[in-house]
């Protein structure tokens, strides 16, 4: 009952409508360049919103979250090339593999707190890259390439690009809804309690190992799914591409920029960061140091507006909270 009541939040539907409208814009104008730009933003929305469940709700900093994106991509492309699976079950399998990895890792490293957990997550990403690099079924260092004919099942490459874009838009909307449902649930309240004070949460009866593991699993699932989508669109996958540590850090910047722990924060953070990155990459002065700018940005946010853009707005204008989920 209360779940249905919660879904009546006006802010949620307002922003879902805005994301849908922005997402449909390239479809209306039929411009491929806009579509590619927005595809990147929507991918970032999924990655950042997923990370937010762990980072923003539960308070655990994962520096290696991109491992779930890469692993999902590998599993999906492997199933498509080796067993002729269609994209849809492959996407699901990619998500499940990543979620399963998170479940196993969770048992081991979610006992660690603070900086120790963060360090362990970096280790996982690097270990996974080294492992895949030497794992022959996944092509070792050369990775997996798709045969161009694979797109024929989806109406040819040109049509497939539009279709993949549509799926990405749907996944981004789904992720926003998922973030909202998790946050307004009892499970989500337990996560917020863990973020604020894990010891106090335990004393109040929150079963912290279970809650943290499920948060980790949930935050790994959709990155795995979009990993398959992204590398399917890309046509090939290689270890250095799949497990880029700096993408993990960019995900963190997006969440912090927009406002950790809010629904809208990672969405605006992803859009804002990708816009900035686009501007930097096309400027002569900054194109080689755009990651440095990301680092400085993260530092400035943490020092001056730790709540992020949406968090700052919510604190500054409490009356607008309904519209800033």
């Amino acid at each position: 009952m209360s779940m249905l009541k919660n879904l009546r939040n006006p802010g949620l539907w307002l922003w879902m409508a805005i994301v849908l409208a922005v997402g449909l814009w390239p479809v209306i104008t039929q411009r491929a360049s806009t579509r590619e730009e927005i595809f990147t933003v929507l991918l970032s929305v999924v990655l950042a919103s997923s990370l937010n469940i762990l980072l923003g709700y539960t308070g655990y900093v994962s520096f290696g979250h991109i491992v779930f994106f890469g692993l999902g991509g590998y599993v999906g492309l492997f199933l498509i090339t080796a067993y002729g699976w269609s994209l849809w079950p492959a996407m699901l399998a990619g998500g499940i593999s990543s979620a399963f990895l998170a479940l196993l890792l969770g048992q081991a490293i979610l006992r660690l707190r603070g900086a120790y957990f963060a360090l362990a997550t970096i280790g996982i990403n690097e270990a996974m890259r080294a492992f895949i690099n030497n794992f022959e079924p996944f092509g070792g260092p050369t990775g997996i390439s798709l045969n161009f004919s694979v797109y024929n099942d989806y109406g040819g490459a040109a049509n497939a690009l539009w279709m993949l874009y549509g799926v990405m838009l749907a996944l981004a909307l789904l992720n926003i809804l998922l973030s909202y449902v998790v946050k307004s649930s009892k499970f989500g309240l337990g996560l917020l309690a863990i973020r604020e004070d894990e010891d106090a949460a335990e004393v109040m009866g929150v079963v912290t190992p279970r809650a943290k593991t499920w948060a980790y699993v949930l935050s790994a699932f959709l990155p795995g799914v979009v990993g398959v989508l992204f590398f399917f669109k890309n046509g090939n996958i290689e270890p250095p591409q799949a497990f880029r540590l700096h993408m993990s850090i960019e995900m963190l910047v997006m969440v912090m920029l927009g406002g950790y722990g809010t629904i809208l924060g990672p969405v605006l953070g992803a859009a804002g960061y990708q816009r900035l990155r686009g501007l930097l990459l096309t400027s002569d002065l900054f194109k080689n140091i755009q990651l440095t700018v990301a680092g400085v940005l993260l530092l400035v946010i943490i020092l001056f507006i730790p709540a992020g853009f949406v968090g700052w707005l919510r604190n500054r204008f409490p009356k607008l909270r309904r519209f800033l989920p």
Partner: protein
Amino acid sequence: MILQVNNVSKRFGGLQALSGVSFELPEGQIMGLIGPNGAGKTTTFNVINGVYPPDTGTVVFKGSDITGAKTYEIARQGLARTHQIVKPLNELTVRENVIVGACFGRQNLPLGQATDVANEVMEFVGLGKRADQLAGSLNVGQKKRLEMARALAARPYLLLLDEVLAGLNPSEITRMTEIVHKIREQGISIIMIEHVMQAVMSVSDFVLVLDFGKPIAYGTPTEVANDPKVIEAYLGDPKLAEQLSSHDPVS
């Protein structure tokens, strides 16, 4: 007996924090736990509610052995506590803090019902007007009441109160003492650690005195206050010993 603590010992490195602590608490009663600083009072609480497993001894709660169980398992069996150093969930509202207590406590309520319980408990401890404020913005007295509200929202059988009166002004102490009395009327058993002697003596049915991790006296407030060993343990403060023996606990 709602709680039986049998021969519990706990050592931290070179410090024997507790040695051979035993006591029983009958249902519906209030036990005061007193002793000089560092006597092991909070450690006793931590052993009872599972923060640390004891080195030796057992803790039996409502007939089941909870020695070494996890804090959240014990919480769900109906044992709630407050903290001496308050632990508010700062970025959540007062109401959300209390809902956490109700949701994950003994009754394991769904959100909707937990909200009703939270509203009721906030009124009971006098935080009703602060419900939508962030917990981090409360003052010390209010944070102590928030600790109390979160623990009560769990609908516990046994409540461990760790210095809920410390740092409060006299009118706040009166108010909090009234709350403790009302909680007892609801049939909830209580163990309270307290330094405010008048309060602990007037509220408790029994008092256990710890000194250097050992129980040195156990009995009614009058018996304990007249026990020479207790007076000796507090001798660093002779005035306090005097105050203890002159106080009439019958009120």
